[in-house]
């Protein structure tokens, strides 16, 4: 009996150690439609392996665009897809991981709708006039296979709306996987670990239906049971990597009871209105509080394929782009918003060495000078007095 307790304790310790995965390197591989030869369906499996764990990302535009994130404490865990079931009207259970017990964290984000509202006199979407929303389930998606870049580890899901909407415009979900911790060169310059991936939501040339249209993206969070979600706004004094943006938002889902680490979504409260993101074409980005959704996952999606239909604890969040004076989209017709999703504690910004160095030199020099000067003055005055003494 004591032995068994010791074993459990040991296992718990091991789990705890695993809960905070090392921020080391991961071997990343991307697979387009694994086990299926038809490229009219888009499913991208990204597998990121390190010494003792595997992260599986499944990106797909099947039904509603969605991403599935699975963290397993086994470097040999494999993802299995039953394609016939996945493409059937009832895909529940079509995606699973072997061995199933190795899964420590599973979550999905489903991008359901794109709203458009009149932001002329409203400071936010709360009291605004809404146009009929675009349902992303009704979009048609280009094949991801052509956009797949195995060296840069990127892929793009580009979708166009139903005929006679959007006016040649498109939206895209651009995916970037990471092998190691680093920081994006491009704005908003998010810091990422090997345990995270970046999703960039891009709207290009979508014709606004009003003079002061603003767009809003609805996301649905799906998770297994026994998880606690919290939406945090992290205000930082450091805007060095994302000029003039001082707020980072992170949606953290922490497991209750088990020792598995949290999963997170993290983004800066800004979008950019040009292909080359710059501070001056920044678009204010707001978010609604997390709303619990009672109901089931509607329509086919990979979230439903993994979690089943009756998954509890759904929550929705809306990200709206553009403030009172945000007319940038109407002039450039381009919008890009980046969000990081991953496993573990969300990365935190720290002062760059340059800032620390400048402050140290700038504050240190006057002090050094003061001391040196004091010594020199003391020395000279002594000398002077000693010269004067005989005269007196």
């Amino acid at each position, binding site marked *: 009996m004591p032995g068994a307790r010791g074993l459990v304790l040991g296992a718990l310790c091991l789990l705890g150690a695993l809960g905070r995965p090392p921020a080391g390197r991961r071997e990343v591989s991307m697979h387009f439609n694994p086990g299926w030869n038809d490229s009219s369906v888009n499913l991208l499996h990204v597998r990121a392996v390190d010494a003792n764990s595997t992260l599986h990302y499944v990106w797909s535009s099947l039904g509603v665009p969605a991403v599935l994130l699975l963290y397993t404490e086994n470097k040999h865990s494999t993802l299995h897809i039953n394609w016939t079931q996945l493409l059937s009207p009832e895909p529940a259970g079509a995606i699973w991981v072997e061995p199933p017990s190795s899964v420590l964290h599973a979550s999905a984000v489903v991008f359901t709708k794109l709203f458009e509202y009149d932001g002329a006199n409203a400071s936010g979407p709360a009291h605004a006039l809404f146009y009929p929303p675009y349902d992303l389930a009704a979009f048609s998606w280009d094949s991801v296979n052509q956009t797949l870049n195995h060296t840069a580890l990127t892929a793009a899901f580009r979708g166009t709306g139903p005929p006679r909407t959007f006016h040649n415009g498109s939206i895209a979900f651009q995916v970037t996987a990471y092998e190691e911790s680093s920081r994006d060169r491009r704005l908003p310059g998010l810091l990422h670990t090997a345990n995270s991936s970046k999703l960039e939501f891009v709207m290009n040339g979508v014709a606004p239906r009003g003079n002061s249209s603003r767009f809003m993206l609805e996301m649905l969070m799906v998770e297994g049971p026994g998880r606690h979600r919290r939406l945090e706004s992290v205000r930082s*004094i450091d805007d060095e990597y994302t000029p003039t943006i001082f707020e980072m938002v992170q949606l953290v889902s922490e497991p209750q009871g088990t020792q598995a680490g949290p999963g997170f979504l993290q983004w800066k409260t800004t979008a950019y209105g040009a292909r080359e993101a710059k501070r001056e074409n920044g678009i204010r980005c707001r978010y609604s509080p997390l709303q619990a959704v009672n109901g089931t996952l509607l329509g086919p999606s990979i979230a439903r394929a993994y979690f089943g239909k009756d998954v509890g604890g759904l929550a929705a969040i809306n990200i709206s782009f553009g403030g009172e*004076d945000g007319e940038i989209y109407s002039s450039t017709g381009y919008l890009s918003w980046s969000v990081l999703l991953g496993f573990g504690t969300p990365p935190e910004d720290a002062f760059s060495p340059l800032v620390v160095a400048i402050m140290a030199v700038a504050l240190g020099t*006057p002090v050094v000078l003061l001391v040196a*000067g004091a010594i020199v003055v003391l020395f000279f005055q002594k000398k002077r007095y000693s010269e004067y003494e005989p005269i007196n």
Partner: protein
Amino acid sequence: MGESGGEEERALLDGDSAGGGSPAGRALPALCDPRRLAHRLLVLALMCFLGFGSYFCYDNPAALQTQVQGDMKVNTAQFMSLYAWYSWPNVVLCFFGGFLIDRVFGIRLGTIIFGTFVCVGQVIFALGALFNAFWLMDAGRFVFGIGGESLAVAQNTYAVSWFKGKELNLVFGLQLSMARIGSTVNMNIMGWVYSRVQDLLGSTGHTTLGLTLMIGGVTCIFSLICALILAYLDKRAEKLLCKKQGKTGEVIKLTDVKDFSLSLWLIFIICVCYYAAVFPFIGLGKVFFIEKFKFSPQEASAINSIVYIISAPMSPVFGFLVDKLGKNIIWVLCAVLTTLASHIMLAFTFWNPWIAMCMLGVAYSLLACALWPMVAFVVPEHQLGTAYGFMQSIQNLGLAIISIAAGTILDSRGYLFLEVFFSACICLSLIAVVMLYFVNRLTGGDLNWSAKKREKLQKLAAAEAEEQEKLRRQNEDDLAKLRPKDHISLRNRYLSRLGAQLPANYYSHLSTLAHRSVLK
């Protein structure tokens, strides 16, 4: 009381007959008689409003930063070039403003010309926005800059010529307050004007911005009208009182530069680095307060103008204090340290920014009062004009360069880095202050004496000078042919050594103090 009332009544009664060109002996209505207080007050009001337009329009970009950047689609470096283009002409003009007024145009025509430059500059600036041509806006700021700084010199010269020896300090004080009011009103009202115009036109865009700036330009027209009336009144007073046209008395000789002492160069460094960390910050401050501290645009405008508001009442107080206590270097040190603390607070904390900005306002006023008079202690009087001209010139040069640098830094590295950069600038000026202290200590300079000691030594020097003068006179009698080249300047120098109260226009440092870059 009754008597004066009667006099005024009488004056009012025969007001009509006293129309134009009547001899000075005739009684004139109080408002029209250049010798009477009422008339001088009228002139004072005109003088104050003379500078209002240019002060109002100088900070138009800061008040409308988001709108300018949004409507013109420019990055922050380009935005800050609006300030740089204002400074460029003044790198050179600081040396010539006084010369132009004294020798070329005369005070009246000079004022009108500079006022016209300000107006035309603002109109070009607004047209640039209307036509959506940012280079035209830059050009407008350049023309505006040609007029603005020199107009401040002209305004000051008028003040000296009308209020010499009487209420001059008060008049300078009032002009200063007017300058601050101009800046403050601008900061707080332009955003509102923009939103009104936006309602009128139904949309934002460069047209809205252009119209808003045109409306702002009305203040310049108003100032130009003041200049015209003032020119008329001055001409009339000249006729009536046979008084001379006002002169700045500035003498600038560029070859003096090679004689400048190390202390003076250190003072220049303090000046350039300090102002470079204050004005560009105010120019970029609005967005900072909105983004970092979640202020509303109105609140952000208010806090951005607090530095100007505080320095209006504090400048005379600190001026008085520094005069009474001396120890200028210690005051400058305090001001620089306080500014450093406030920049660090803004950069590294989320503390209420009102604290930091109020500290900045107080420190800024203290520095202006303690730093600028120091030049007079380290430079012989005949070089004062050159020293001040040079100081303003490199200050403008510094402002122009740092403005653009600040814009670039903000775009690429954000506000934290910008604040660190400003803190580094302040540290550089702190280093210069510390060095100045030791240099002064080692060379036995008088920069850090208390006022008492200064007075004592001044008396001593005066006695010595008297003796020397006696000797010199004897020599002069002996060598009757050897006369000093310029007896007026010699007498002035002697009198000021004595500590005698000279008419204010003899102090060239007083008149140069009224350059905008100093008073702002």
